[in-house]
C-alpha cells in the first residue's frame, strides 16, 4: 500500500510534471479517437480534460489506465517512461480511475469492493486492517459511509465515494475522474469539489474529465481542451473565460441556451395518478407518483440517477406493471396496456439506452426504423406480410428528414454513431406524431451538434401539440427546455414547479430530498 503524500526527496521532481503524455494516438475502426495528443499533469494540480461527447477524453484516460493500448506515443510518470498495458500496470504505477459507469460489484459490501484484488497472497482477506484504513479515510474527508452495506443499497453518490475510496486505498498519486458530476446534485457536486481540493492539498494530482464549463471554472488549475481527437490547447483556468473555452470545445461560436418559445398549453393529455411500482429487486421504486401534462407542454423530471426514473419510464412504456395507481392518455386508461397498445393510443418513447432498449443493432437501418410499427399499414399488408418497398421508402424519407448520416437504408445499424442512432429513434417515434412523448436522457452521450438537434426536435414536437415528459439528469437541459419541472427523489415526486421560478439551487436541494428545509 502506498502513501498518499508526495515524496520530497528530489526537489527538482516537483517542477517536472508528474505525468507526461507525448504524441498519443489511438484509433478505433472508423474513428481516430486521439490524434497526436500531448498533455502534462503537474504534481498537486487539478487538471481538467474538457471536450464534448466524442472528443476523445474518455479514450485518453482509459488509455492512461491501461484499458486500451495506444497505437503510438509515449507516457512518462515521474520522469521515467512507463508501459501501461493493463489496469494492473496503471495501479502499480500509481494511477487510479473513477469511471463514468461505476465498476462495483453490487451484491458485495463496501469493504469487499475495496479490498478486492488488493491482496496478492494469503487465503483470507485482511478485512480488519482494511476497515480501519477506510474508516480513517472517510473521517479525513468528512464522509459518512456504512462500510458493511451492500453496494446495491447505496445511493449513487455513496457509490461514487466507494470508487474514490478504492483508488485512495491503493495509494494512487494520480486520480482520474470521468464525468463524476453526471450523477450528482449541484450541492453534492460542490462537496465533491471541496473534497478534491483537499486531496490536492494532500499531494494528489487529479485529472477531471468533463464537458461542463462551470465545473472547469470551479475546480481546475489548468484545463486541456480536446476536440475531435486533437488537443486544442492547454491553458491556466484563471487566464481563460467560459466563452473562450466553449469556442475551443466546439470550434465555433456557441449559443448557450436555446430560445424557448412560449406556447399556450392545451388540454390535459396525460394523467398519472398515485402510481406505485417495484424495481427488479422487489423494492419500492415509485411511491404515489402523480402528474399531468397538457398539449404543447414539456414537463421536465429532474433527479439524480437511481431515484425511480428508470422504473417510471418502464411503467409509462408498459414494460413494468404498476402495483397501484392509474395512467390515462387522452381519456383512455392505459395503466395495464401492453406496449403495442400504448403506441396505438399515441405514446412515443425515447429510451435512455438506445443500443439495448431502443434498437436491434444487427438489423439494417430500414429494419430498425419500423421496429414496433412493423405490423401497421403501409409497412405490412394485412398485418402479416412485410411490404419491403414501403419500408424502404419510409427509411429513405427518414434518413433525409432527420439528417441521419448513413450511406444507405440497408446499412447495418451497428455502424452508425450515437447521434445518428438517436436520430433514427426520433425518426421512428416522431413518425407517428405521438400525443405523448416520453424522452429518457435523450441527449446523453451525444456531441453538441446532435444534442442541439434533439432538443430542437423536442421543442418542435411541443409546438405541434405533443405533451412531453423529459426525464433528464442534466439540470441545464431541464431548465432550458421544460415549462414545468418535477423533481423525483427516492421514488416520490417532491414538487412540481414552474420553470420560471426554478433555480439550480432550489432544484438541487429537492433532488437531494430537502424540502422546505427538511431532509427526507
Amino acid at each position, binding site marked *: 500500500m502506498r502513501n498518499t503524500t508526495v515524496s520530497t526527496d528530489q526537489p527538482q521532481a516537483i517542477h517536472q510534471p508528474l505525468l507526461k503524455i507525448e504524441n498519443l494516438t489511438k484509433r478505433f475502426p472508423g474513428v481516430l479517437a486521439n490524434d497526436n495528443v500531448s498533455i502534462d499533469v503537474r504534481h498537486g494540480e487539478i487538471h481538467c480534460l474538457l471536450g464534448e461527447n466524442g472528443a476523445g477524453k474518455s479514450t485518453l484516460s482509459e488509455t492512461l489506465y491501461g484499458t486500451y493500448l495506444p497505437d503510438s506515443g509515449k507516457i512518462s510518470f515521474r520522469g521515467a517512461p512507463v508501459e501501461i498495458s493493463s489496469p494492473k500496470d496503471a495501479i502499480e504505477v500509481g494511477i487510479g480511475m473513477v469511471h463514468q459507469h461505476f465498476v462495483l460489484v453490487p451484491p458485495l459490501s463496501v469493504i469487499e469492493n475495496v479490498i478486492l484484488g488488493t491482496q496478492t497472497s494469503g487465503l*483470507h482477506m485482511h478485512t480488519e486492517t482494511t476497515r480501519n484504513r477506510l474508516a480513517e479515510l472517510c473521517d479525513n474527508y468528512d464522509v459518512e459511509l456504512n462500510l458493511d452495506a451492500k453496494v446495491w443499497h447505496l445511493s449513487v453518490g455513496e457509490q461514487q465515494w466507494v470508487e474514490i475510496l478504492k483508488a485512495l486505498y491503493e495509494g494512487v498519486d494520480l486520480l482520474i475522474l470521468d464525468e463524476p458530476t453526471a450523477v450528482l446534485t449541484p450541492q453534492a457536486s460542490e462537496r465533491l469539489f471541496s473534497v478534491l481540493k483537499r486531496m490536492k492539498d494532500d499531494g494528489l494530482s487529479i485529472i477531471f474529465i468533463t464537458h461542463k464549463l462551470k465545473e472547469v471554472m470551479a475546480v481546475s488549475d489548468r484545463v486541456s481542451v480536446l476536440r475531435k481527437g486533437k488537443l486544442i490547447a492547454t491553458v491556466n483556468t484563471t487566464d481563460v473565460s467560459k466563452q473562450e473555452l466553449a469556442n475551443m470545445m466546439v470550434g465555433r461560436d456557441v449559443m448557450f441556451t436555446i430560445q424557448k418559445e412560449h406556447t399556450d398549453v392545451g388540454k390535459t393529455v396525460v394523467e398519472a395518478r398515485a402510481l406505485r411500482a417495484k424495481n427488479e429487486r422487489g423494492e419500492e421504486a415509485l411511491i404515489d407518483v402523480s402528474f399531468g401534462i397538457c398539449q404543447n407542454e414539456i414537463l421536465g423530471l429532474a433527479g439524480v440517477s437511481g431515484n425511480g426514473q428508470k422504473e417510471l419510464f418502464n411503467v409509462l412504456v408498459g414494460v413494468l406493471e404498476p402495483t397501484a395507481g392509474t395512467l390515462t392518455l387522452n381519456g383512455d386508461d392505459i395503466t395495464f396496456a401492453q406496449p403495442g397498445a400504448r403506441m396505438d393510443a399515441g405514446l412515443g418513447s425515447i429510451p435512455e439506452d438506445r443500443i439495448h432498449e431502443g434498437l436491434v443493432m444487427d438489423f439494417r437501418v430500414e429494419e430498425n426504423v419500423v421496429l414496433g410499427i412493423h405490423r401497421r399499414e403501409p409497412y405490412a399488408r394485412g398485418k402479416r406480410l412485410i411490404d419491403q418497398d414501403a419500408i424502404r421508402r419510409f427509411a429513405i424519407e427518414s434518413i433525409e428528414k432527420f439528417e441521419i448520416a448513413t450511406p444507405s437504408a440497408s446499412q447495418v445499424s451497428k455502424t452508425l454513431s450515437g447521434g445518428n442512432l438517436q436520430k433514427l429513434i426520433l425518426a421512428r417515434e416522431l413518425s407517428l406524431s405521438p400525443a405523448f412523448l416520453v424522452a429518457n436522457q435523450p441527449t446523453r452521450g451525444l456531441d453538441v451538434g446532435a444534442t442541439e438537434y434533439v432538443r430542437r426536435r423536442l421543442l418542435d414536437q411541443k409546438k405541434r401539440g405533443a405533451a412531453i415528459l423529459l426525464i433528464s439528469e442534466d439540470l441545464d437541459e431541464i431548465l432550458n427546455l421544460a415549462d414545468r419541472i418535477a423533481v423525483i427523489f427516492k421514488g416520490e415526486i417532491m414538487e412540481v414547479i414552474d420553470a420560471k421560478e426554478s433555480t439550480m439551487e432550489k432544484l438541487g436541494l429537492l433532488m437531494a430530498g430537502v424540502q422546505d428545509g427538511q431532509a427526507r
Partner: protein
Amino acid sequence: MVEFFQTAIIISVLAGMIRIATPLLFAALGELVTERSGVLNLGLEGMLQMGALVGFLVSFQSGNLWVGVLAAGLAGIILGLFMAWMVSTLKLDQVVSGLALNLLSGGITFYWFRVKFSSAGTQMPNIQIFKFGRIPVLSELPYVGEILFSQHWLTYFVFLGAPLVWYFLYKTRIGLQLRSTGENPRAVDMKGLSVTNHQYGALAFGGFMAGLGGSFLTVASAGMFLPEIQAGRGWIAIALVIFGNWVPWRIVVGAIFFGFIEALQLALQAHNVNLPHQLLLALPYILTIIALTAAAGRSREPLHLGFPYKRE
C-alpha cells in the same frame, strides 16, 4: 404394496438415496463454482460422460480403480479448459459452446466404445467396482450406520466437499475474486485481475468434479460403460444449481432429493410394484422440469452469468 414399506427396504432406499445423489452432487457443485465465475457450462453432460468412460477404461487397463478415478478427473479438467478456451478466450456464445462440447464428447465416447468393444461381438468386460467404505464403529449404528456411514469414499468426499465449496466461495480471497467475476467482470478487470484466469480455474474445477462424478457411474456403480450412461444427469445438475438458487446447501438438498426419487424408483421396480416402469424411469426428468418452474427465486443468480466479458 404394503410389504414395500418394510424397514429393510426403507433403509436401502435411503442408503441408495445418498449413493445415487453422489454423481449429481459432484456435477452440481462443480457447476456452481463455474457459474459463480460467470460461465454457464452446458457441456456438463459431456464432461460426466467422458469421466464415466475414462474412469472405466483406465481402471480396466491399470487394474486400479483410484487411478481410473483420477484419470477421469484429469479428463474432466481437460474438457473444462477446452470449454474455457472457447468461452473465455475466444468469447464464443456459451450455450452453443456447451452444446458443441456435448456433441463432441458424445461422439468421441461413442466411437471409442465402438472401437474397443463392439468389434466381432466382444463381450463388454466388467470391472470390479469399489467396495463400500464402511467407517469403523459408526457404520455399526442402527439405521444411520447403513445409510450414512457405509457409503463409497467418493460419496464421503463429495458431501464433505459441499461445505468446503461454501467456505472457499465466501471466506477466502480467491473465492471473493471468483464471485466478483460472475457478478461484474469489468470490476475485476479494472482492479487489474484477470477475468480469464478465474474462469479457466473455475471451469477446470467444474470439469474435475464432473469427471469424478462421471467415473462414479462406472467405477462405483455399473462396473461397465455404456454410451449415454450418464442419462441426462448433467442437465439435472444444472437444474439443481438453478433450483438451489446458487447456494451450496440447497443444492445438496436438491441432489439428495433426486437421489431419493431414483432410489425409490429402483426399489419399486425391484419389488414389482404395479406401475409401468417407464413412468418411474421418467420421473427424475419430469421432476427436473417441475423444479425449473418452481424455482423459488433466482435472487442469487450471478449477475453476469452467460455473457462473455469483453473489455470495450
